[in-house]
């Protein structure tokens, strides 16, 4: 059967359905109600099927996982919910309150915060953790690492040979789970899922199996970044805009515009700069409702979310970078710290 026959089936059904006469009295009642409601807004009309939440945060099935090893109870550095790791002039710094902490080791990327320290990746591919604000880098694995993401307090990484591995960040815990992908690249991992760019497409691996995150090849040339949040919800930033997927990739929404952005860990909110790039808005991908964020102003150079769900914004104004921290709903923003070098970034 071809699409022509799909058309014919829909047409045949529509022809066969009995059409009732208009209920004029009922319509008048509806009109009165509609007038009473005032001017309705029709611009935003994006709907979505129900998101299917995964139970628990089971390890990605396709990675051959056997469970998350228990975090060691004697961890010597607890995660400070207010502390935000940043990179300033190529070095790890910890923003605690309104102070920029001492200069830490040279890092390429901040992977994230865990109760056992800040996980970072260096230019030479060392994946390590920094347990104290000014402390040394302790390698977590002996592999050279290309990319890494936090999944709770475990880390999922891809080594230089393309092997994707999962392990707790505590150095005494040996890696037990791994998967070799065929020319695949690890793009994101969080909340028990991994997103891997494979030859057949961008694939979401979760406890229910493997699902395609369909990107239109006519529209998308470059994937600029992938965020994963609870749900699981995945936001894929491309040169054509942002595609947000839920329902195991079967449902989604598109946000036009080639801008930076960050999906909240809860998967419900996507933060991005406004069109002029000088302020921030929060979008609900399911409704396209946008909420402006009052406070940060200047060229928005970075967006992120703290582990406890606060919105983090970096703006550059007259050469100085300022880190702003706002509540999860974008309210109550306050400038935390200024970096006169203008190089401060979140990752």
């Amino acid at each position, binding site marked *: 059967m071809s699409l022509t026959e799909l058309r014919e089936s829909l047409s045949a*059904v529509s022809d066969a359905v009995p059409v009732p006469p208009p209920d004029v009295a009922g319509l008048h009642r509806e009109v009165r109600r509609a007038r009473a409601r005032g001017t309705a807004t029709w611009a935003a009309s994006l*709907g979505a099927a129900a998101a299917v939440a995964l139970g628990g945060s089971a390890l990605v099935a396709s990675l051959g996982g056997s469970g998350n090893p228990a975090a060691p109870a004697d961890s010597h550095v607890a995660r400070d919910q207010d502390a935000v790791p940043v990179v300033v002039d190529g070095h790890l710094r910890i923003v605690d309150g309104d102070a920029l902490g001492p200069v830490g080791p040279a890092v390429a990327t901040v992977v994230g915060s865990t109760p056992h320290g800040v996980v970072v990746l260096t230019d030479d591919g060392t994946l390590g953790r920094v347990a104290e604000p000014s402390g040394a880098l302790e390698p977590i694995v002996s592999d050279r690492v290309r990319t890494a993401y936090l999944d709770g307090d475990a880390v999922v990484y891809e080594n230089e040979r393309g092997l994707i591995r999962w392990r707790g960040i505590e150095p005494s815990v040996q890696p037990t789970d791994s998967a070799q992908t065929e020319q695949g690249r690890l793009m994101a991992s969080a909340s028990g899922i991994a997103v891997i760019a494979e030859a057949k497409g961008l694939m979401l691996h979760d406890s229910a199996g493997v699902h395609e995150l369909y990107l239109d090849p006519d529209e998308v040339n470059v994937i600029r970044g992938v965020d994963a949040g609870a749900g699981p919800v995945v936001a894929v930033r491309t040169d054509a805009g942002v*595609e947000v997927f839920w329902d195991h990739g079967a449902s989604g929404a598109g946000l036009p515009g080639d801008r930076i952005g960050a999906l909240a860990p809860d998967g419900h909110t996507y933060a991005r700069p406004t069109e002029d790039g000088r302020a921030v808005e929060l979008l609900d991908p399911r409704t396209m409702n946008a909420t402006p964020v009052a406070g940060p102003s200047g060229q928005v150079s970075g967006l992120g979310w703290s582990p406890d769900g606060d919105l983090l914004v970096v703006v550059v104004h007259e050469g100085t970078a300022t880190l702003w921290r706002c509540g999860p709903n974008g309210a109550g923003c306050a400038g935390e710290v200024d970096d006169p070098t203008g190089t401060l970034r979140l990752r």
Partner: protein
Amino acid sequence: MSLPLVTVTEPTFSDFMAARWAPLFRTAYLLSGDQHEAEELLQSALARTCVKWSSIREKGAADAYVRRAMVHQMSSRWRRPRRELATDELPERGHGGGLDVRADHLALWEEVRRLPPRMRATLVLRYFEDLTVEATARELGTSVGSVKSQTHHALKRLRAALPDLELQP
């Protein structure tokens, strides 16, 4: 109904409704998959259209306005938890048995009815209303990429449900 004292070239809302009730009801039925829901959906969308009638410049595009109103209203329902649960309850097979259509059309329609509402709406706009991908995106208030994605997944589900059918894009 009293006649206007001056000749007008634009149709009144009553003219529009008299002419377009039946075809719009058919669209509402395909969108909702249910007769009663279709009637409610269309009635509500027409009421909103009536309120906005004077501000609709292109009366020829009023069909699209009503369709968009119906899609918008359905999307609000999908977002409500009650409806989200309801979408998981698959329509019972044989519901469409009262329709006088060929068995293969009916089999395909039953699978279309079982799709998530947004996917179904995408198929209806593209393959029943014959809208372009761009026009479908405008009516759904989403991106072209999303429409293509929804279409892709909808056809994939139909193929999986009806393996004997060879739906080619």
